[in-house]
């Protein structure tokens, strides 16, 4: 099926061409490192601050104290005390994301130990921030209530049940630790799929395919030979990304390195296979690029890289089973962050291997020995 002499010739030729082309080399090795750094810094979902304006309709000692306590939280960056109209404008143009309105009579109610309501407007156009801001507001309110109870000496009489959560694997809940593995999987799929699809399309477009097809080379040899060099570059990229991720973002390597590389290898077989498959349906490099992006965008968005697959509508979930990115993101997170072993990731690894095999067989079946 595969002739080793021809295979070696193709692999050597691909390496010579890739190493000679500076732009290609920069794309293969420089860009992944640059991207992991940029995306690593940018992909920060932590909510740290909300610009907040206050409307104090009560103007009492209590209302001022309540607002002072809120700004002491650091989460809420005071943007001043304003009127209702000004608050609405600030929220609309995005200068502030939270508006807190203390109604008339607030001080009197607190004084009289009555239930008091404070209105809060939160900009919901950024749901992550809105959810976090709302939670922080509620937390502040319940703390104030507890303090008030304690002041009244009633705290002893209340049976308090509290959870004592212990966060595993990522105790400071740094979203970067979560994002970097996803970014790594995305960079690899983009690079290897596009480079393979375009590499074969180029042979067709430039005319070298015509010269190749009059040699006794077998299609499978050509296919495998064209992909081996990029699998090697892909594994080099995995190494670069893991090292940079560790040095710059403190992404740990809690599990076995071998499991990560095994996963990466199986993953690369599938992404390179998709590249080959794309090459069998296009004629030019431009078409390869277009079709490539039609695959890449959904593959990345439906990988669980940004949004959990569990949160997707049920009818979309089966689609993600056909997505190699999904499995590699899962494997990377499990091994890097949770210290999972091969046995722990057997399920995604097995699915990924089956998918890789399927893609490879499909592209081999479609690979033509003629020009048209």
């Amino acid at each position: 099926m595969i002739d080793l002499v021809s295979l070696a010739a193709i692999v050597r030729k691909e390496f010579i061409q890739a190493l000679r082309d500076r732009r290609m080399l920069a794309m293969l090795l420089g860009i992944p490192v640059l991207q992991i750094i940029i995306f690593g810094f940018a992909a920060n979902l932590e909510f740290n601050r909300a610009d907040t304006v206050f409307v104090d309709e009560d103007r009492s000692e209590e209302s001022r104290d309540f607002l002072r306590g809120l700004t002491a939280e650091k989460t809420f960056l005071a943007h001043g005390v304003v009127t209702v109209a000004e608050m609405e404008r600030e929220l609309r143009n995005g200068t502030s994301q939270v508006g807190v309105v203390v109604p008339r009579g607030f001080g009197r109610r607190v004084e009289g130990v009555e239930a008091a309501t404070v209105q809060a407007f939160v900009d919901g156009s950024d749901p992550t921030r809105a959810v976090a801001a709302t939670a922080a507001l509620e937390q502040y309110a319940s703390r104030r209530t507890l303090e008030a109870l304690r002041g009244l000496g009633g705290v002893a009489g209340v049976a308090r049940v509290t959870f004592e959560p212990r966060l595993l694997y990522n105790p400071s809940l740094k979203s970067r630790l979560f994002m970097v593995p996803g970014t790594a999987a995305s960079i690899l799929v983009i690079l290897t799929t596009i480079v393979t699809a375009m590499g074969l399309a180029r042979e067709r477009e430039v005319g070298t395919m015509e010269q190749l097809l009059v040699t006794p080379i077998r299609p499978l040899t050509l296919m495998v030979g064209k992909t081996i060099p990029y699998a090697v570059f892909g594994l080099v990229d995995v190494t670069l990304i893991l090292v940079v991720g560790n040095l710059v973002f403190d992404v740990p390597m809690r599990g076995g390195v071998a499991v990560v590389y095994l996963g990466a290898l199986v993953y690369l077989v599938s992404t390179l296979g998709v590249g080959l498959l794309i090459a069998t349906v296009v004629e030019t490099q431009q078409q390869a690029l277009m079709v490539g992006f039609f695959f890449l965008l959904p593959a990345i968005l439906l990988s669980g890289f940004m949004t959990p697959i569990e949160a997707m509508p049920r009818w979309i979930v089966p689609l993600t089973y056909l997505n190699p990115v999904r499995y590699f993101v899962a494997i990377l997170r499990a091994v890097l962050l949770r210290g999972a072993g091969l046995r722990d990731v057997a399920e995604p690894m097995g699915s990924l291997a089956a998918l890789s095999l399927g893609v490879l067989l499909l592209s081999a079946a479609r690979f033509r020995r003629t020009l048209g």
Partner: protein
Amino acid sequence: MTALLEAVALSRSFGATKALDTVSLGLHSGELLGLVGPDGAGKSTLLRAMMGLIAIDAGEARVLGVPWEKAPADSRERLGYMPQHYGLYTDLSVDENLRFFASLFDIPKDIFQQRRTRLLALMQLERAADRPAGALSGGMYKKLAIACALLHRPQALVLDEPTNGVDPVSRRELWGLLYEFVHDGMGVLVSTPYMDEAARCSRVALLHQGHLLAHGEPAALVAGFAHDVIEVEGTDRRALEPFLEAQDGVVALTPAGERLRVVVRREVRQQVEGQLRAMGARVVEGRADFEDLYLSLVASRGAA
């Protein structure tokens, strides 16, 4: 003798265009077969079909007597082919290209070294061995491409427009090489858009819009030419042209410097000449060449 490569009533269309219409042609050992026709005549399509590179709609393409679909695995090793457009890697050097294609044909290292030295010398490419193929001149590139196609010592060599874009000196050298190959018993099939190159072949096939107009030995084809050729000069060409074009007996008309070359039916030659002289023109006897032959064949096909 079995043909090395053969097209049998071969047809192929691209959409509504019939690129090849029931073409039959065979290449034999020890002959230099020329496929002549203008751009778009279907030359490349015919060569690709004969090389088993494209699907065909009807008829058959055979290699050593066997249809391509049933051809033995080693068929490719008996054939050398140079496509019309750049088929080598322009970013690889002359040597790297040679080595790459030698590996694909599984040529042992020591044999490769011998052949490489001989081919580089033959093609006068020794000093360019380290240059990227993309940096070679048109003629040098074609020589390298031919060298790559010869590495595995094929029985048949198929060259798609080897002299196109090549300067006259290199062109003559290329033809010299082809004669050597044929002398050694190889069958060489060459396509060319240049009519004057037809006479250099041992056999020619004239292709026009996917039809084989004629084929045979060049001398015999020209000798069998049914019309006369005259050259007209000495008076205003602008006046002569409309007159000649209106004549039924005039088959083809081509300007040749100051003169007009006229292919004319024998039976009306005297009459046309008389009228031309009456218009003040001088008439000289011309010698029929391939272009006259081709144009007349095209004209008679158009009339039919």
